């Protein structure tokens, strides 16, 4: 009987061994995949049970979690949400998240790898877990200046420090109040979210980095000029100066702005063509340079690259496999060339920074709840786009644009400003996109801006980028220089 009892004892131990094993598999080995399951409501709820970290701009708290008395233990609160919505985004229970809230989610909830020891600590001490706080490179004063400058225009503005890549301001208009998406009543939140989604002015889209990228129009001439200077052209290189040009291999005629010639005389120079933003000389230049050279310069400046700032930036596009006519159109930023305002700011920043392209970023530092810095901003080079001599020549040309009075509206008293406007037309009836990009002071740049205004009027009614986009850029630069 003893032998049989031993066997029964072994059987009991085997049965329990199975339970030890199965419980271990569920609770430890497959726990993370179970928690990642979209049907797991505990994951949603528990993301609200840790106190989500704060988001700061400078020393101003612009997003925080406050305790509430419900199943979800905390509710998100946004301060000056309309001002910061394009950067901060939103964090909802049922409708996903956006902006920094989405891109920095694991840090904000304390789940990032750098916070492993913090998690162990909270486990031992039993204190409620707290996420890390994220401080942005955004300067509240400049952000406010950019918002004021844009006013009621639909569009966006971005300001960078050209020497580091830190984003000082990022405004997409119209913004929205993210607080309306944080309530505990799911149906209300869904209804408000849908309303924002269907708003024709698309407030949920951060226009500086994504959504529908714009044709960059004449601001793209900076890229073509850089390619030309690299290829041996000079600001004094001459081009035939007709008042209209038939695109190679087609019957389509193109004109300069104002339908005239580019300055007086039978020829014009590259400097004048950039100053007066003439389309015809650039079409001629583009055809001479060829697709490869322009594409190579665009690529070095960031076109076609997916950046993370940490939000994903829609890659800007310079098309490939174009006919000569298409290349001619592309050379002044039309046809299928597409760019985000951030990309155009990067072009100006590279020129301002001696040709060196720096990765733009929004996160200044990440700190845990004991104020230990887990990570902080570091300058990251994306390579040398152009020779520093080419860059300094371009600085001179862009400064001449403003000094000569072509973009008088960008002038700032006592400071040399470098700039370039653009008026992107898609069709004659559609609304123009009005551009400005530039930097100041020209000899020692502290700030780079790019502005794009969407509802810039149509062919016959446009006030033009000088009147609308350039002053916005000027106001933002002024705000930086006055600090």
């Amino acid at each position: 009987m003893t032998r049989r009892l031993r066997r029964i004892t072994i059987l009991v131990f085997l049965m329990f061994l199975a339970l030890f094993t199965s419980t271990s598999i569920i609770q430890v080995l497959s726990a993370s995949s179970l928690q990642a399951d979209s049907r797991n409501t505990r994951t949603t709820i528990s993301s609200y049970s840790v106190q989500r970290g704060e988001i700061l701009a400078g020393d101003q708290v612009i997003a925080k979690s406050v305790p509430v008395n419900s199943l979800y233990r905390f509710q998100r609160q946004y301060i000056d949400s309309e001002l910061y919505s394009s950067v901060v985004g939103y964090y909802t229970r049922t409708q996903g998240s956006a902006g920094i809230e989405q891109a920095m989610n694991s840090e904000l909830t304390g789940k990032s790898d750098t916070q492993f020891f913090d998690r162990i600590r909270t486990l031992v001490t039993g204190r409620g877990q707290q996420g890390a706080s994220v401080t942005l490179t955004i300067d509240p004063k400049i952000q406010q200046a950019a918002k004021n400058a844009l006013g009621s225009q639909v569009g966006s503005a971005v300001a960078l420090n050209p020497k580091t890549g830190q984003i000082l301001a990022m405004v997409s208009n119209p913004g929205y109040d993210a607080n309306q998406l944080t309530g505990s009543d799911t149906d209300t939140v869904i209804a408000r979210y849908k309303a924002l989604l269907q708003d024709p002015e698309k407030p949920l889209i951060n226009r500086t980095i994504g959504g529908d990228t714009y044709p960059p129009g004449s601001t793209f001439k900076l890229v073509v000029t850089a390619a030309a200077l690299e290829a041996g052209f000079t600001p004094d290189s001459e081009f035939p100066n007709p008042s209209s040009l038939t695109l190679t291999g087609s019957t389509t005629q193109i004109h300069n702005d104002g339908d005239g010639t580019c300055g007086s005389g039978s020829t014009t120079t590259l400097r004048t063509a950039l100053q007066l933003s003439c389309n015809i000389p650039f079409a001629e230049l583009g055809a001479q340079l060829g697709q490869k050279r322009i594409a190579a310069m665009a690529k070095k400046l960031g076109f076609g690259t997916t950046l993370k700032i940490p939000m994903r930036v829609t890659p800007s596009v310079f098309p490939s496999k174009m006919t000569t006519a298409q290349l001619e159109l592309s050379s002044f930023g039309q046809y299928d060339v597409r760019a985000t305002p951030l990309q155009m700011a990067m072009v100006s920043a590279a020129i301002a920074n001696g040709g060196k392209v720096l990765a733009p970023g929004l996160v200044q530092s990440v700190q845990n709840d004991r104020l230990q810095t887990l990570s902080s901003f570091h300058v990251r080079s994306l390579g040398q786009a152009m020779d520093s001599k080419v860059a300094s020549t371009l600085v001179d040309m862009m400064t001449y644009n403003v000094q000569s009075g072509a973009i008088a509206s960008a002038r700032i008293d006592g400071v040399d400003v470098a700039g370039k406007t653009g008026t992107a037309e898609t069709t004659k009836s559609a609304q123009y996109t009005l551009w400005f990009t530039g930097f100041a002071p020209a000899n020692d740049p502290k700030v780079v801006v790019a502005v794009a205004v969407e509802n810039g009027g149509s062919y016959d009614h446009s006030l033009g980028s000088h009147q609308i986009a350039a002053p916005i850029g000027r106001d933002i630069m002024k705000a930086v220089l006055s600090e």
Partner: protein
Amino acid sequence: MSTASTVAGAAQVKERNLRGIELALTLVALAIGALALILVQYGALGGLRPVPLVFAGVYAVSVLAVHVTLRITASHADPILLPVSALINAFGLIMIYRIDLEKQVTALWSPAARQVVWSVLALAAAIVTLLLLRDHRTLQRYTYISMLAAIVLLLLPMVPGLGSYNGTNARLWVHLGPIAFQPSEFAKIALAVFFAGYLVQHREALSLTGHRILGIRFPRARDFGPILVVWAVSMLVLVFQHDLGTSLLYFGLFLVMLYVATGLTSWVWIGLGMFALGGWAASRVITYVQGRFDAWLKPLDTKVYDTPGGSYQLVQGLFGQANGGLFGTGLGKGYPGITPLSQSDYIWASLGEELGLIGAFAILCLYLVLISRGIRVGFAGQDDFGKLLGVGVSFVLALQVFIVIGGVTRVIPLTGLPTPFLAAGGSSLLANWVIVGLLARITNSIRVGNREAVS
């Protein structure tokens, strides 16, 4: 003579210590329970509430009453049984109370309060068992009455007007006035008594007679009769009460006791084969059983998950356990209430969520300690009936733990049995505390027997 009395005296000192050990361990168990209750209140409410502490006090006094009864009527009983059972029971109470808090049950007559009352009644049942049953061998006289009682209890839920599904998938419940109970929980004790008595009487006949065919010894028809009856009843339970777990429990109990009594391995295989055949047939015929198999094999499959009666509940339990991880969310800090039946069928997932893998292992170890104390009776026992009964009731506990927790953790298809001592429900608590009383009585006789042998 003097040597013998010295040995007896030494034995007596040791025996007196048994109850001292039991008291010390019981106090430790109750202290752990009290601490856990306080943690739940701080974790979920952030402060203390007096009423649950009063309930806890009533429970503690009842546990100590069992200890006093043991001192008086079974002073040589195993000292581990009471504290371990009391601690597992306390974990169940605390988790049920914790889920009440999560669901914001404010009524005084809450599931937790009911469970405390049932626990007190169950502890009283253990006391009554110890008082009425002064020698477990008297049970042997009731062998056939036990069989009858077991069959009646098993078939009771099938009686029209009495039985019900009680909101579950299995027709396991009997309504007597306002009280619903699960007769199957009591039937397992009656069956263990019957099997022990029957096998003690017939094991010679069973193991030595019969014909050998193909190397397997087949029993004579008249010896085989009761086995067929048990198999038939198990199948009836499966088919008419829709309960795979209960029928597996009885059949497993029977096979193990048969094996321990006769040593006939071949019968175990025959029995398992018969059960597998019945189970397979049932899974083909009864869609409910088929559904349970699907939920077991591919719970995360969208189709299985969304089917009514599919894997939704099981998966919620898995999510809860995953949320607990290695260390658990901490008492009062998880969301066990999201899982349906989190206080009864899925209490294991609830405990796993808040106590983590570490807590789950601790509870499994407590079960193992309790069961091994029972199986020890088989090794050390004086009489064959007591040995068989002790092993039988211990194994039925082990098998029940395996079937329930194995179902929740996907070792086997899920079935609706109560987790011993943990799950909300009075019948199970009563039956399991009676088992503790029985084991105490049997272990008492072992040490008394030893002392008699020495003197």
